[in-house]
């Protein structure tokens, strides 16, 4: 069944047991919505110099957007900003691939659990769900940087 390519076991796991959910102290907070479906996320980033000390979030949305935020938390917390950016860009590339991109080993190493979203990229309406938290993270990071709270 084609559906299984979207709803990978990993994704359903993250959805049912999200990692790092809840709002904690942060340097910057953003609120993003997906106007086409009403998914919402409030996301905070906390930096310790160049290191991502925490990404905390609260929101409502479908399994894809919720699982994606959970995976983001897993992947980015503890990383250096430069590396995090690379992960974000790789995830974006994968999501915009319209199902044409078969993740290779290198990509898998960067994205870990997030490669499970490869199947989602075939569904244009859901790509935005998967990207919601990642766009929020990017935005929050830009705010934190411009407020000079990090290096």
């Amino acid at each position: 069944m084609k559906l299984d390519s979207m709803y990978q076991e990993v994704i359903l796991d993250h959805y049912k047991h999200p990692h790092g959910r809840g709002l904690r102290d942060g340097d910057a907070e953003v609120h993003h919505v997906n106007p086409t479906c009403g998914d919402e996320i409030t996301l905070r980033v906390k930096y310790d110099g160049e290191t991502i000390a925490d990404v905390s979030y609260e929101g409502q949305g479908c399994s894809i957007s919720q699982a994606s935020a959970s995976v983001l938390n897993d992947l980015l917390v503890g990383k250096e900003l430069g590396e995090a950016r690379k992960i974000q860009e790789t995830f974006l590339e994968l999501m915009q691939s319209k199902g044409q991109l078969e993740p290779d080993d290198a990509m898998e190493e960067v994205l870990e659990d997030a490669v499970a979203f490869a199947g989602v990229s075939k569904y244009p309406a859901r790509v935005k769900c998967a990207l919601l938290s990642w766009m929020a993270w990017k935005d929050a990071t830009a705010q934190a940087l411009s407020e000079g709270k990090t290096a």
Partner: protein
Amino acid sequence: MTDARQGLSGLLDTEAIRKDFPILDRTVHDGKKIVYLDSAATSQKPRQVLDALNEYYERHNANVHRGVYTIAEEATALYEGARDKVAAFINAPSRNEVIFTKNASESLNLVANMLGWADEPYRVDSDTEIVTTEMEHHSNIVPWQLLAQRTGAKLKWFGITDEGRLDLSNIDEIITEKTKIVSFTLVSNIMGTHNPVEKIIRRAQQVGALVCIDASQAAPHMVLDVQALQADFVAFTGHKMVGPTGIGVLWGRQELLEDLPPFLGGGEMIETVSMHSSTYAPAPHKFEAGTPPIAQAVGLGAAVDYLSAIGMENIHRHEQAITAYAVKRLLEVPDLRIIGPATAEDRGATISFTLGDIHPHDVGQVLDELGIAVRVGHHCARPVCLRYGIPATTRASFYLYSTPAEVDALVDGLEHVRNFFG
């Protein structure tokens, strides 16, 4: 087939009707025939409407109102003939009260803008109030918010009860002497609620406020008689009533259309133009700037013919039967909660629901895999979702081509969804 389907009466001959709609033969996902349950978003189009469009473009296409040559006269006759058909369909006292717009949203914005630029007694300004409801489509909220911002008028609204009905208990506080316009939907696009027009109109008339009715979800499904409604403006949209995209209607009372100022300026809406000043043509042309949606009006005329031939009472009866059946069957699904009226009374064939804590997007995605097309999200009626503290709903909506078997397919599909995320 379930037992419940045995007793259904009032159904149309959907087997014959479905033959008119080419898309209903469409298959998706390896040969699954589509089960189209999203007619509240847009309806499908019968062959007759597509034929009218083709015939127009292949034989009569010309710009209207200004040509003395044969096909220009034909195009004008077809375009104005469509106005006659729509006027008859809604029982308008005069064909000149029927304005063609691009969609219901433009129709509603047109009313809001006319009132913003109007002279007394219609003028909306900072001493006056605008009334709408929490149940509206965004297209009947945002134009009034914009008008309120631009003029300083105050925006007020009716709330919704737990059962998905308008809460009119405080009607005398909401509609007051300061109210210039009350705009509300006849049938809710998210909950299907059919609203009590008379009570609102009576109060509005008491205080001398104008009334605008958003009939986008009513015109396709029941007899719409603008004289019986007693409103001042009625808006609806072609694509939801088996017509083409790109065409909407605003009906307005003739005296008002005469008194109110134009909105968009340009060709077609003028009487005479000089660089220093211009005068405007009488309604409806005053409100139709530029080349109108000619082919789309012709298509809407064919749509109205199609619906009338089947009969709006018959369509309504069919949908009532389907709705009663759907409500009954949906309530059998565990964890399913209907948002809005949970009975078949005073409601249209649109049913929103939640399914446990499975997000509607996920519900919709799994149903699509089965060929079932439902809409998920806030349905351009986010205040309703806020009201019930839910992020979104899954919405199934039915029309003249919908069958009890499609209701069954939906119910089976929902079982499948529950298992998938169980």
